């Protein structure tokens, strides 16, 4: 075998309490983010909401989706997805952010 030996065949059974812990965190954070939305934090609105969302998404991926217990390859695939998503979002937004800089319309 090239790089798939017997080590990947063993399966990691995650204890149930991990699932419940993650679940309660998610529920609490859902209500926190909903409550925070009723406060006006100005430009921080978007950052707080996204930070909470990113945290929630991370624990879903790490524990519900078992990334935490997965092979290096799976982790690399996840990182690649995030990396390419950032490329798409940030490089395009970099254009939009810098459009007014030169003070010449269209440049």
């Amino acid at each position, binding site marked *: 075998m090239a790089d798939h030996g017997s080590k990947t065949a063993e399966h990691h059974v995650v204890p149930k309490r991990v699932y419940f812990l993650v679940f309660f965190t998610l529920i609490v954070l859902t209500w926190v983010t909903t409550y925070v939305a009723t406060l006006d934090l100005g430009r921080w609105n978007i950052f707080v909401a996204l930070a909470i969302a990113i945290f929630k998404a991370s624990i879903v991926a790490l524990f519900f989706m078992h990334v935490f217990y997965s092979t290096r390859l799976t982790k690399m695939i996840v990182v690649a997805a995030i990396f390419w998503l950032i490329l798409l979002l940030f490089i395009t937004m970099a254009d939009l952010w810098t459009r*007014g800089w*030169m*003070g*010449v*319309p*269209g*440049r």
Partner: protein
Amino acid sequence: MGEKSFQIFPEAASTIAGHVDALYAYLVLVSAFFSLLIAFCVVYFAVKYRRRGDEIPRPMDEHSIGGMILEIVWSVIPLGLSLVMFAWGASIFFTESRPPADSMEIYVTGKQWMWKIQHNEGAREINELHVPVNRDIRLTLTSEDVIHDFYVPAFRTKTDVLPGRYTTEWFRPTKVGAYHIFCAEYCGTKHSGMIGTVYVMNEADYNAWLAAGSGEGSMAEQGQALFNQLGCGTCHPSEINKLNGRCPNLFGLFGTTVELNDGSKVKADESYIRESVLYPQSKIVAGYDNIMPTFKGLVTEDGLLKVVEYIKSLGPRNGMPSSATSAPAQTSGPQPPAAPTANSRAGNPATPGNR
């Protein structure tokens, strides 16, 4: 244009063209060198090392120091050469992107499938653009429908013409003559028919042409008429130091930085004025209420450009960088530079904003 049936090079008729051609020469030389080098090696190796008998060549040790050095050399040399290409191209591009402050302004509207051009002095033309030689010309372009692209090969410059936005292109013609205008962004059925001609003229010929052309007053005057017709003037004051608390004063507005009610700042350029007319609620000036109705559908792109030109003509241009030295001359849009004869030319109205 069009006289010679066999050409390999377009005419060079702008200040930028020489720079682009020089960069082109560099690129052609580098490319030719590498193409010929590779072609020579491929042919030479194919002949020299053609197989004779059943011998198998001994594999070269690619991990040797020599192999490594070779790999590094043929990575670094192309990188160096191409960074020159980048820097040279970028410097030309930045020159092309920044119109000189005292450029003569002309407005272009693209629509399927024609170019509509308005001069400050009031002359209007379709698919033709008359410009004086040796003057910086700044085009402000927009489209009524799809994306077009205003391309003059002899000037080596083009820019996309987008609906809903203004873009800018500038050039300084150096040779009297007639040159192609092409639409270079595919725009539909008659895309290849959306062509025109730039006529670069002597200053005197240009003035004569301008004098013959306009009967409707300058663009700013037409803009003022439209401004009043739409009732903008009933709310917006346009005299110096006059405030009514309901609508921002437009005198001297153009080129300044405006503070909005959400605390952000925006430069009052052509795009800002256009957006404020069509989408007044998008950006509300600090201290004013959201009461302005939209004029979307009530004013054409051509009309908008006239209003923009009118607002530009109100008061001195605070925001224009190098305008301080020639501030008095800036009050009615573009002014001819050195040439003294041009100052007295017909068709250049008295400053409408000061009347």
